[in-house]
Each structure stands twice: as structure tokens, then as C-alpha cells.
């Protein structure tokens, strides 16, 4: 077949440019470390990488929810621990007040101690969560949820729990009303009484100060405090359980993030070994093209006739 000289040169230039372009593409991939630099490089892989990236961002966000919950639950757990200690002290104090040899003024010294304990219990119940809310605020409280009016402590929040923004159910607050206010005691014969930990102490203090039925007061007071203690222990172990679950959630989130990272890398990252060898192939090809051009352009009949 005849070959047109001009076309041959044009073709050579096109080929050289093509090889140069291939080499530059390979170089871009090598320097970026990415096989997929634009969606058209591999649309499926680009879409996979996009989903994996969103999943990574999601794990990070969910982790923040878990951390907030952990923060609140640790506060709740240690708060309830304090409450238990305080109630133990109150219990011992009431037992001591039952001592028949104590005079009224000695008992009043003990009730002063009980008042102090009650005051501390209120402040534990009103423990803030560090972000403007309250650990025992229930479903929502912007001011201290437990307030005292005319010597009676009331719960001002909304009953319930604030949940953290996590796929698994974890709390940002505990239901303060259920823990502190709604304590029930079985009186036998199918009747129950309901009281708060504060009224239990209040009643004990008032009755001890009246000094009429000390032993009855002590028995009732202790029975009530034991119920309250039981309830606090239960709530405390709930918080502890929640902390355990949070550990599990956190490690699952970390696993999921790692899986997403791997997925993203699999989808779009470059196999370096292969890429380097391909780059070298392309380099060799380009060199060969240059050399053949240099030798072919010398070959012309005009070189031999003169």
C-alpha cells in the first residue's frame, strides 16, 4: 500500500502525543495514589467510594452521640453512687436516733445531720450535664429539675428520657422522676404507699423531732430508705449497663468506620506495584517511539541521490 509522506509524519506525531498523554495519566495516578480521579475513570468504583465516604462521616457523627451519652451516663452513675452513700449515712443516722437513751436534744443533733444529707441529695439530683441540661432532667429541663417549695421537693421536668442520636437506643438523661420521686413500698394486705426519697427523709426528720413514736418512726424511715436504696442501686446498675453497651457501640462504630475506609480504598486506590510497572512499560513504549521516529526520519531516497 502507498503511504503518504505527510500522513506518515502526522500519524507519528499523533502517536507520540498519545503515548505522552498515557504517560502523564499514569503519572497523575501515581502521584495522587488514586486509580479513580474522576467519576468516568470507573463510575461504579466512584459511586462505591462515595457511599463509603458518607458511611465514614456517619460513623464519626454517631461516635459523637455515643461520647455525649457516655459523658452523661458516667455522671449519672457517679451521682447515683453518691446518693447511695448519702442514703447509707442517713440510714445509720436514723438507726442511731432510735437509741432509746438519747435525749430529744441529742436526737435533734442527728436530725440536723439528716437535713444536711437531704440538702446534698437535692444537689446530686440536680446534677448538670455540662451542656446546659441536667443528668436527671428526664425528657427535658432547662432549670434545675428538683425544686423546693414550702419545704417540699418537686420534680419540674418532663418525665421520660432524652435519647442520644444513635441508631441504638442510648440515653442522654435519666428519668429523674422515676428514680427520685416515685418510690413505692408494699405495706402488706394489698396496699402500697408512694413517696419520694425527699419526703421519706422529711417525714423521718419531722417525726423524730416530734419525738412521740421514735421506734415506729425509725422502723418506717428505715423501711422507706431501704426501698429508696434499692431503687438507686437499680438505676445505678442501669447506668453501668448503659456504659457497657456504649463500649460495645463504640467499638462497632470503629469497626464500621474501618470497614468503610477499606471499602473506599479498595474502590479508588491504586495498586502501586501494578501502577509502577505499568508506568515503566509506558515509559519504555514512549522511548521506543522516539527512537523509531529518529531513525525512520533519516530514511528517504533523497538521502541517497545527489
Amino acid at each position, binding site marked *: 500500500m502507498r503511504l503518504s509522506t505527510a500522513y506518515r509524519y502526522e500519524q507519528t506525531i499523533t502517536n507520540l502525543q498519545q503515548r505522552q498523554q498515557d504517560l502523564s495519566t499514569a503519572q497523575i495516578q501515581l502521584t495522587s495514589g488514586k486509580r479513580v480521579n474522576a467519576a468516568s475513570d470507573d463510575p461504579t468504583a466512584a*459511586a462505591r467510594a462515595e457511599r463509603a465516604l458518607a458511611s465514614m462521616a*456517619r460513623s464519626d457523627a*454517631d461516635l459523637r452521640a455515643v461520647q455525649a451519652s457516655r459523658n452523661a451516663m458516667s455522671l449519672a452513675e457517679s451521682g447515683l453512687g453518691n446518693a447511695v452513700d448519702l442514703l447509707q449515712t442517713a440510714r445509720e443516722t436514723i438507726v442511731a436516733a432510735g437509741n432509746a437513751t438519747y435525749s430529744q436534744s441529742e436526737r435533734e443533733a442527728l436530725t440536723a445531720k439528716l437535713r444536711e444529707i437531704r440538702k446534698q441529695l437535692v444537689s446530686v439530683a440536680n446534677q448538670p450535664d455540662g451542656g446546659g441540661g441536667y443528668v436527671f432532667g428526664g425528657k427535658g429541663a432547662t432549670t434545675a429539675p428538683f425544686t423546693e417549695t414550702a419545704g417540699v421537693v418537686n420534680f419540674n421536668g418532663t418525665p421520660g428520657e432524652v435519647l442520644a442520636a444513635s441508631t441504638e437506643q442510648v440515653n442522654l438523661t435519666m428519668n429523674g422522676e422515676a428514680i427520685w420521686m416515685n418510690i413505692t413500698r408494699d405495706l402488706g394486705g394489698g396496699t402500697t404507699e408512694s413517696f419520694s426519697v425527699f419526703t421519706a427523709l422529711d417525714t423521718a426528720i419531722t417525726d423524730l423531732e416530734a419525738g412521740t413514736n421514735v421506734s415506729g418512726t425509725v422502723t418506717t424511715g428505715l423501711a422507706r430508705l431501704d426501698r429508696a436504696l434499692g431503687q438507686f442501686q437499680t438505676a445505678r446498675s442501669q447506668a453501668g449497663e448503659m456504659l457497657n453497651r456504649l463500649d460495645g457501640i463504640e467499638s462497632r462504630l470503629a469497626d464500621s468506620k474501618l470497614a468503610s475506609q477499606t471499602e473506599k480504598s479498595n474502590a479508588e486506590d491504586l495498586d502501586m506495584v501494578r501502577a509502577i510497572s505499568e508506568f515503566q512499560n509506558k515509559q519504555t513504549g514512549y522511548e521506543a517511539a522516539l527512537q523509531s521516529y529518529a531513525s525512520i526520519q533519516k530514511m528517504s531516497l533523497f538521502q541517497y541521490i545527489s
Partner: protein
Amino acid sequence: MGSGIFALGTGAMTAARAMLDTTAHNISNVNTPGYSRQQVELATEDGLFTGAGFFGRGVRLTTISRATNEILVKETNMNTAAASADATRLNKLEQLEDVLPLGQSGLGYAATQFLNSFVDVSNQPLDMSARQVALAKAQEWVSRVRTADQQLTQLQSGVVSDLTLNVEQVNNLTRNIAEINQSIATFKGSGHTPNDLLDRRDKMINDLNKLVQVNTVEADDGSLSVFMGGGQLLVLSNAAQTLSVVRDPSNNALGRVALQTPNASNPSAPNNRILDSDQITGGAIQGLLQFQDVDLAATRSDLEAFVSDFAGAVDAQQALGETAPGVTGAAFFGGGPYSASTLAVSLTDPAGIAASAPPFSSSDNTNARNMLALRDQAIVTLNGLPPSTLTDAYSQMIGNLGVLVQNGRTASEISSTLEDNSRQMLSGETGVNLDEEASRLIQYQQSYQAAAKVLQVAQTVFDTLLSINR
């Protein structure tokens, strides 16, 4: 007898000289685009009858012909048109790909991060700084949407200005073809082909095919009528039609190719008749129209669907929450209708984020958590697909665009290979090969020398004859 050898020698020299000239012409035009190799056509003069039989009377120059192949020319033109359409479209597609970036610079990621910021709002609903972050993330998403919208608008106006330039070139070419038709027709009676004019016309037809695919029909007078792929006449003999670019009456942003027709009532303002897209079957103009009507339109529609579905879902969720007892949340993004070109964050007060579900409590985070849950809801409906989540929808969008670009690249590779092949075949037949010309040069040089030798011999013979008288 003596005059015979002189005439023969002169004829041979003329022929050799003509062939040398033509070879020199070929060598001169080795790099001229569209040039076809020329060749001297020779014939033997009819013999002179004598009693002793026919005496040869030497060589005769019949004409100068050019190497051409009508079928290959047509095939090359066809492939040029297809390759030019695909290359033009690909070039635009590669710019289009930048509109929807991948990864962290993408607007899908920005939308996800906006929703993710509600984790902090729900962690501490009373904390204004967490809400402020959510507003900033919303703004970030909006500005990415606006950037994408601007890029699409710029691409569209680029299409119209490219169309205008291309149509201007088409008009120049068709005018020149009409003129050259006239020149060629005047030589028709001479019995010889005006090779260089024909080359120029073929080149113009090929150039025209780069812009818009055309078919040609040769008339008896040698002029070429030019029709667009769909049959619309562009050049008839020495008259050319004029094309123009007008705005699509149904969408002012789009450009359309129109044919100018005379306006009887106002000759200075001709009428424009918009040509159907199926009239334009190849060339850069077709590539541009396809990009505008298919690729750009699809990406634009995906973007608008994404923006309006996502902004709508956020606004709807916001309206389900409360910012004060009995006060539902005001819209984040203006409440719709949403458009990528006008999208804005209408909420400015961080306290306006309705984190609480009714009944209102300032520390309730139910609605903020529901907002976050939009991540997993199928809220975006892209054209013809079932609703999907935010992330899936954006993945789908970049996947769609990637496939468009990939297909455009493949189409362009195939059609440019076809163009190369046909161009190679055509140039093999019509192009100049310098080695060939070099050997012809020697061949004709020797012919010339031989002819000169004949004249020298003739002179010697004549001298011998004259010397008898001395």
C-alpha cells in the same frame, strides 16, 4: 526525415519537462492539507502512414489528472463528521464532570455533613454553638449547589457561543463553496479538470463536515450541491443558504440552529426557521446540540431533583418540630419551590432550629434526631428511579455522569479511529510520497536527458548532411 527527429525530440523534451514540473508541484505540496497527487497523462501520437508503413510520431500530453477516489472521499467525510461530533461532545462532557466533584468536595458529602451536624444539636439542644454549626453546614451545602448551578449555566452559555462560532464558519464555507462552484463550472468546457480548485473544494467540504455532516451531489456543470444530513439544502450551484443561531422559544437558555429565509416585508431582518435536530446528523454542531439536549439536561435535572427533594425534606422535618410552645420551626431553605440557582439558607437564628418535637421543651432533641434520621430515608427521587437516600442519590448522580463521560470517550475513540483509517486510506491513494517522487524525479530527468540526446543526434545528423556540400 530530419524535421521528424527534431519534432520527436522536442515532443519528448516537452513531455519530460511537464512531468518534471508536475513532480516538482507534488513535492512542493507534500504538506499542503487536501492536496492530491497530480500526474501527467501521456498518449502516443497517431502514426504517420507511408508506403513503408506507420511511422511513430512521438508522445502527446493529454492532460494533468489528480489522484482521487470519490468513495473514499465520501467515507472520510462521513467519518470526519462523526468523529468531530464525538470529540466536541467529549470535550464538553469532561468539563461537565467537574460540576459534580467526588469525595469531600462534593455536594452530596456537604448534604450528609449538614445532617450529621444534628448529632451535636441533639447531644446538647441548648448549646447555641452546635446549632450555629448546623447553620454553617447548611450554608456550605447551599454554596456548593450554587457553584454547581453556575458551572452548568456557564457550560450552557459556552454551548451557545460555540454554536454561534461554528455556524459562522459554516456560512463562510458554504459561501466559498458556492464561489468555487462557479469557477469550476467555467472550466467545464475546456475538457481539463481544474485539479487544484477541486482539491480546494474537497478540502472545504471536509472542513464543513467537521462542523455539520453534509452530503454532496455533483451537477453536470461540475458544481457540487451540498445538503445537510437530513436533506436541508445548503449550497446549490453558486448560491449558498445562511444559517444562524437563535434561542429556543420554549427555553431561552438553549441555542438552536435556524435557516435564514427572506422576509418580504423587511428584507434587512430575515426570518429564522429553526431546523429540527434530526436535520443535523454529525459534526461539531451536532455534538454541541446533543450535549446541550441530552447530557447537560440530564445533569441539570438530577441536580434540581436532588436540591428540591433534599431541601424539601429538611424544611418538612423542620416544620414538624417546635421552637417555642406551639410555634413550629420556620423553613431552613425558604420553604420552596426550590431551584439550584436561587437556593439559600433562610434561617439565620440558631434558636430557630426546631430541635424539639411537640410538646415543646427546650432540652428535647426528638426533632433533631428525626432530622438526623433523614440520612436513612429515601427522600430523593431522581428521574425514573425509585426514591433513594441522600448518599445513594448522589452516588447515582456521579455514577450517571461518569457513565456519560465514559460512553462519550469510547464513542470518540471509535469514531476517531474510523476517521484515521479512512483518512489513511484516502491519503494513501491521493497523498504525495516523497520516495516515489524522488524516483520519478530521476526517471523524468533521465527521460529529459534522453530527449536532449535525440536533439543532439538530430543536429549531428543534420551537420553531416550539410558538410557533404563543402
